[in-house]
């Protein structure tokens, strides 16, 4: 992860409609970058280009370069499945596998990657699940209900379960698409604290409508408008002395 993520001349379309236009952005490793911008500006599409999730929609298309630690995610021979293991994603609405237990939700990704290895790895699997749940700040709350359905947890717990599921396979990057918009303030606070802890080991790109959340958690903030990257800078700069008048107008609420 020495080089983080380098996005060069990224363009993306849904059919004939261009969503992302000529984005260049460098994301430092083990940092938190917030993407802000009005609805429909392309910020969700942008992060979905970072782990090749955009192209799963029929008619969707991407051009440009996304380098993850110098490896082109859109280069020939790049394996989307492998990429999505390295670049995890957490969505707006918590989406645990509804029929699976808490344990199996976290173990699901691990079982795929550990498949074919010796059965002696059962203890190893258990240790990895526990480590992921601890990292997600959920272990103490679910340690005695690992066998219960993941869908039985509260919304905030489900979201942290999804983060644990991402963390279990030891990704280099986690993309978060409005991870707190369906949560109450206390659950939001827990996720934000978790994000702050995770940034020591993983690169985080978070899309948020909540500008105070971007201000609280992000090292750098990028402002998008109409599919373009208008401005990126230290979060403190963006919220005190933005360079572009359009950024100023958006963060001060003069449009949007």
């Amino acid at each position, binding site marked *: 992860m020495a080089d983080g993520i380098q996005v060069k001349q990224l363009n993306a379309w849904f059919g004939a409609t261009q969503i992302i236009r000529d984005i260049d952005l460098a994301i430092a490793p083990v940092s938190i970058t917030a993407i802000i911008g*009005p609805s429909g500006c392309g910020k969700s599409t942008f992060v979905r280009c970072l782990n090749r999730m955009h192209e799963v929609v029929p008619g969707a298309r991407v051009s440009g370069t996304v380098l993850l630690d110098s490896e082109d995610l859109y280069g020939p021979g790049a394996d989307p499945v492998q990429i999505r293991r390295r670049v995890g994603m957490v969505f707006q609405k918590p989406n645990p596998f509804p029929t699976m237990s808490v344990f199996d939700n976290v173990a699901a990704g691990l079982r795929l990657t550990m498949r074919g290895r010796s059965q002696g790895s059962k203890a190893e699997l258990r240790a990895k699940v526990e480590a992921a749940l601890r990292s997600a700040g959920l272990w103490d709350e679910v340690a005695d209900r690992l066998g219960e359905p993941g869908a039985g947890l509260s919304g905030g717990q489900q979201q942290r379960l999804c983060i644990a599921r991402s963390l279990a396979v030891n990704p280099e990057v986690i993309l978060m698409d409005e991870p707190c918009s369906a949560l109450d303030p206390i659950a939001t606070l827990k996720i934000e604290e978790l994000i702050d802890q995770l940034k020591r080991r993983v690169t985080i790109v978070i899309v948020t409508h909540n*500008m*105070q959340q971007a*201000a609280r958690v992000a090292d750098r903030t990028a402002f998008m408008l109409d599919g373009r990257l208008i401005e990126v800078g*230290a979060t*403190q*700069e*963006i*919220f*005190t*002395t*933005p360079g572009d*008048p359009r*950024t*100023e*107008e958006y*963060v*001060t*609420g*003069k*449009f*949007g």
Partner: protein
Amino acid sequence: MSSAWREHADSGGSPAPPAGRSAPGGLSQGRAHFQQQLQRLEAHALGGLDLILEQLDRVLEALSHQDVELAQMVIADDDRVDGRYLEVHQGILSLLALQAPVAGDLRLVAALLHMIKHIERMGDQCVNIAKMIPLSGHEPPVRREVLEALARMGACARSEVTQAKAAFAGRAVDLAEDLVRQDREINRLNREIFRMAIEIGDDPDTREWAMHMILVARALERIGDNAVDIGEQVAFVVTGLFREFSDSSHPSDTGLARSPGSE
């Protein structure tokens, strides 16, 4: 509490601050309300400078005519200035707590907090002058040239306060920077009065009066400094950079610096 400054907001008679740039999507309702609150708060803070002008005019009048009663009124009316400080301070706290202003709005709120503190200090300097007036008795051994120099200082201080207000209301950095030029004249007169007092002669009563006049000059000089400080806030609101217009500890420095804590 918060309604107090709204009621007074229009009495300041200051021009409305420049309207925000027109935005692609138009003002959203919630933020439009916030912008109105912010504009009212600014008008109320700028109105504090009008209170200072009243206090300054009366204390200079009291000084030139040795009017002890008028000086007493100036002291009593400092409560109005202090009240204005508290109202604006409370309004700023409310805006910070309830509206979480950012970017240009945040810079304006921070600058208002500085400005109202400078206004409060200017009010105190008017009180300091007023308190000197009764100390000399009804027929003090005045020297015309000293009183004339003080009157010129007073006129300069008044002009600086007026200009600081206009610079802030109009976000006029050049007008704000020009305050430094005006302030040099006040500083020069301050030194001149000091020299006059030293050379005022042997009569003990006259020397005591001259000492008091040195303190008056000092208070006027400080009012000028506060006006310059308000000018520095104008530059901060507009550019996002804080710099001292004149820094006596680094006279050759241009004073250009990034705001503290920024990267």
